[in-house]
């Protein structure tokens, strides 16, 4: 979330799409309701099903799963045509005025792809996706037939050509206008199935906050994995971000682009880089081609790129400070300037090791052993059968869990006979872990707030704390490597200075994350001093000379000399805008609304005087306010420093240049990988051109001929993933799995509510009772009557109802495809094809 849960109460307009917060985030959703109650804010719900959110929305549009880019593109077109854009914001705070290189081509001109498409490799040479800046582009063409990795991209130009009148035909704004001119209401209707009158009602209502360019009101876009889980998920979110920039909603109270994360600490897991392609604090992993630490830094540290008279802080120019401090935390004294801060110890990554590839690699025999801690990969899918088949080939599996789960019992999943079981060679260890109430530590919520929790009860039985298990395994491995073994250095040199090495105190780990001074430090400007060994006050103190250690730079400030900031419990909110600066601690630097400089006009005055977040104080020549300025505190407005300090340009990217995204600098609408129609925009290019399926025998993809129904998966508010099927209270609320289908479809098939239905995809089948409802209607998609169904996914083969034999002991993810988004590598759980029969 750019903003936060409580901040939603400041909004005037909500577009909730690709998410169902009433269902999945009820307690955060209260602030959306609060806006309705106190500000008479309006809410638009766009969803494949009429959901609990839709029940309290002011306008509902039923959309075909996966067609969100068409909808949002249509809204962008509507906003531009009806002058419902934030002109000043657009010119000064975004790259709308930037001029793009002449050889950049839009899909309208190049058969449905952007310029630079390499059809053989299913990838783009993105050199032409650049600003024009009079600097000669480096050689970027690829010799025909050459099969090496794509050539390195040219840099962004240091001085960007621009046109503040926005009239240059090659400026970002004109390209945007041209690109989305094709997203007419008629086209939106053909693709999404939303009648054009209804679409126009929605577009009119959402953009009404910017009627005649008036900047007072703010609108927010709220989404969740209904957007992420597509083969173009990142681009849906991009479209939303662009719309918000166009309307001047980013950085403002009650505005922003708000991703509602679905789990208590996957925000923290992302921040902490529990993912193959990053290091803590969104640092990029080194590749084998980065021959040294310096080469790595050169590649990953962006250089400023902006119109000459403007300013850009380009905060990621500090990447070396963050990285060196991280490596000092990892390897302590073993990380020296001489050895590139132990650069060799880091594994180098040049392949996709993401979730679906991980299972594919196990399926293909590459992966021998897996740890699954609180991660039920078999149930989570996609393509659960493939994951079960993959585990059969592994040598060992270590599961840390609190309940019996599908993954740890893959070897006796339904359909495996005793004889087959005996053929499965995998050794499975199932270690009893601690529940949430037995552990302390911090979670980072969706609003980036780190909140410390305390342990309330001891672990039951022989259960052990998760951190103790990992520590004990690691220490035993380290003992073994003390004798011999391959490349033992990173294992032997890893810092492990916890008071109790066998069960590290999580408070000590948080201190490590915050970082400390390794030598006496002094701030040259303020003369403030920090002694060696003291906790750092924040990431501004980080150094690239090895005098600071910090596990995760964005968490620097969370555990300072003043103590554990994440445990703060001051609920006060002096501005009454939901800032609560004294409650917990939010990254970065306790800022609650990101990019809040954009809440003011160019001169530093708030767009809306009634919702003042920060402002420029002429007297003190400082940015001050109710929130911590997400900006250089002393940058005078007349210096024209861009508010988007994490971008090299300093401004918001309506056009995402170069390597930012794999599949286009503007989002273009493509059909889901399994789709019922050809793409009406360009039938010859139906799917995302850079997306390809996996190739194993279990990776099967269906077509509309065999599988005519669009299917989407979803969560219920009564259940949480594959966890609460062990909780008798939640099981009482919703005792059985079901399949939600429209009354018209059910009538046609002669299915009544409560009857069993079989849903099949190219990959598997799923049987559950039908929920026949008026809340899903048949849709006309490109002139063809199309049905959609939705399936809640909370069941598997171990749970209260499952063990009592009340379900078919199946997982919905037996149906879902292994197709992933090319940027975020998230599988396309939504909008795949199935057929439906009576069971």
């Amino acid at each position, binding site marked *: 979330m750019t903003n936060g849960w409580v901040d939603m109460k400041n909004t005037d307009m909500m577009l909730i799409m690709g998410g169902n917060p009433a269902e999945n985030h009820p307690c955060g959703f209260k602030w959306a309701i609060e806006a309705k109650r106190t500000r008479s804010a309006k809410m638009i719900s766009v969803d494949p099903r009429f959901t609990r959110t839709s029940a309290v929305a002011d306008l509902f549009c039923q959309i075909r799963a996966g067609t969100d880019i068409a909808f949002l593109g249509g809204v962008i077109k509507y906003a531009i045509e009806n002058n419902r854009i934030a002109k000043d914001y657009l010119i000064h705070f975004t790259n709308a005025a930037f001029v793009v290189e002449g050889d950049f081509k839009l899909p309208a001109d190049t058969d449905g792809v952007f310029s630079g498409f390499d059809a053989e490799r299913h990838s783009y040479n993105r050199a032409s996706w650049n600003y024009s800046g009079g600097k000669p582009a480096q050689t970027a063409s690829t010799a025909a037939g050459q099969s090496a990795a794509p050539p390195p991209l040219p840099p962004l130009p240091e001085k960007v050509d621009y046109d503040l009148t926005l009239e240059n035909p090659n400026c970002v704004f004109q390209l945007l206008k041209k690109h989305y001119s094709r997203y007419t209401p008629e086209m939106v209707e053909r693709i999404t199935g939303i009648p054009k009158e209804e679409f126009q009602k929605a577009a009119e209502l959402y953009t009404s906050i910017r009627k005649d360019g008036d900047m007072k009101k703010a609108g927010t876009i709220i989404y969740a994995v209904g957007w992420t889980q597509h083969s173009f998920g990142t681009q849906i979110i991009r479209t939303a971000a662009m719309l918000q920039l166009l309307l001047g909603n980013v950085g403002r109270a009650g505005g922003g682009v708000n991703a509602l994360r679905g789990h*208590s600490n996957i925000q923290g897991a992302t921040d902490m880089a529990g993912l193959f392609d990053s290091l803590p604090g969104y640092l990029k992993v080194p590749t084998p081609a980065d021959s040294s630490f310096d080469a790595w830094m050169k590649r990953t540290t962006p250089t400023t790129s902006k119109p000459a008279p403007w300013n850009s802080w380009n905060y990621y120019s500090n990447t070396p400070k963050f990285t060196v401090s991280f490596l000092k935390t990892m390897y302590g004294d073993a990380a020296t300037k001489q050895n590139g801060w132990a650069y060799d110890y880091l*594994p180098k990554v040049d392949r996709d090791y993401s979730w679906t590839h991980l299972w594919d690699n196990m399926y293909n025999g590459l992966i*021998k052993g897996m*740890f699954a801690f609180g991660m039920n990969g078999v149930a989570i899918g996609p393509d659960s059968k493939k994951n079960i088949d993959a585990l059969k080939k592994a040598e060992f599996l270590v599961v840390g869990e609190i309940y019996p789960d599908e993954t740890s019992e893959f070897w006796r999943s339904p359909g495996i006979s005793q004889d087959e079981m005996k053929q499965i060679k995998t050794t499975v260890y199932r270690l009893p872990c601690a529940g949430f*109430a037995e552990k302390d530590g911090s979670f980072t919520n969706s*609003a980036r707030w780190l909140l410390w929790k*305390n342990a309330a009860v001891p672990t039951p*039985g022989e259960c052990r704390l998760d951190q103790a298990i990992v520590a004990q395994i690691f220490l035993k*491995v380290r003992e073994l490597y003390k004798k011999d073994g391959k490349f033992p250095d990173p294992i032997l040199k890893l810092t492990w200075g916890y008071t109790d090495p066998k069960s590290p105190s999580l408070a000590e780990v948080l201190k490590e994350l915050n970082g400390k001074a390794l030598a006496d430090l002094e701030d040259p400007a303020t003369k403030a001093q920090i002694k060696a060994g003291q906790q750092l006050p924040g990431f501004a103190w980080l150094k690239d000379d090895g005098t600071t250690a910090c596990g995760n730079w964005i968490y620097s400030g969370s555990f300072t000399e003043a103590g554990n900031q994440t445990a703060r419990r001051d609920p006060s909110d002096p501005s009454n805008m939901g800032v609560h600066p004294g409650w917990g601690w939010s990254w970065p630097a306790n800022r609650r609304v990101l990019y809040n400089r954009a809440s003011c006009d160019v001169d530093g005055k708030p767009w809306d005087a009634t919702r003042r977040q920060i402002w420029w104080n002429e007297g003190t020549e400082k940015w001050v306010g109710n929130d911590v300025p997400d900006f250089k505190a002393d940058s005078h407005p007349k210096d024209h420093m861009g508010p988007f300090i994490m971008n090299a340009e300093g401004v918001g990217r309506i056009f995402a240049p170069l390597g930012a995204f794999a599949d286009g600098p503007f989002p273009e609408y493509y059909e889901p990988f399994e789709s019922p129609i050809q793409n009406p925009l360009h039938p010859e290019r139906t799917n995302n051109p850079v997306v390809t399926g996996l190739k194993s025998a279990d990776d099967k993809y269906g077509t509309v001929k065999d599988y005519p129904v669009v299917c989407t998966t979803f969560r219920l508010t009564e259940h949480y993933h594959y966890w609460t099927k062990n909780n008798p209270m939640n099981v009482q609320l919703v005792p059985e799995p079901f399949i939600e289908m429209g009354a018209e479809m059910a009538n046609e098939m002669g299915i009544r509510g409560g009857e069993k239905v079989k849903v099949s995809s190219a990959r598997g089948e799923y049987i559950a009772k039908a929920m026949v409802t008026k809340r899903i209607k048949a849709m006309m998609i490109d002139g063809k009557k199309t049905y959609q169904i939705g399936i809640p996914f909370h069941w598997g083969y171990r749970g209260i109802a499952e063990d009592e034999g009340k379900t078919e002991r199946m997982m919905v993810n037996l149906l879902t495809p292994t197709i992933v988004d090319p940027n975020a590598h998230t599988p396309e759980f939504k909008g795949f094809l199935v057929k439906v029969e009576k069971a």
Partner: protein
Amino acid sequence: MQATRRDFLKFTTIGGAAAAIFGFDLEPAYAQLRVLKIARANETRSTCPYCAVGCGTIIYTIGDRAKNVTPQVVHVEGDPDHPTNRGTLCPKGASLEQDILNDRRLLKPQVRRPGGTDWQDISWDQALDEIAQKVKDTRDQTFIEKDGKGNTVNRLETIAWTGGCTDTNEFNFLVVKTMRALGVVHLENQARV
């Protein structure tokens, strides 16, 4: 004995007399109420482990932290001070007591041996020793120091870590530390899916 007029008088007045004799008092001014079950319970501030709203919860346990008490959860309720949830909880958060006191919890280490058709109990020490040995053996056999082009890669592709959604930041960092130190590249998390 013969029925007389006196008998009749006796008969009709016996009921009224009985009430007086037994002296029933059926006039409570106050009704019986259940005493507030959390009145003296111990409060622990925690965070709900489900979605990313991060609601503050208060876990009520019996005992006052005295040494001779094993805390037992008696109630879980929203933390009214928490700015986001202000004491509210959803149906999952509100049922957390059943998550803490769940009789389906795994309570001891188990192992399923190759070809096995059921779980066997295993001691912690043996389980951890075996796991460590497998990690060491696998790593030693398959660790890649250089790629085809001669670049140093120092990676371990044969062991994967999949992390859960409810792991704390601190636990995740310990995982990053240990796994990256081993050279693990198949490092993924619920955050991906």
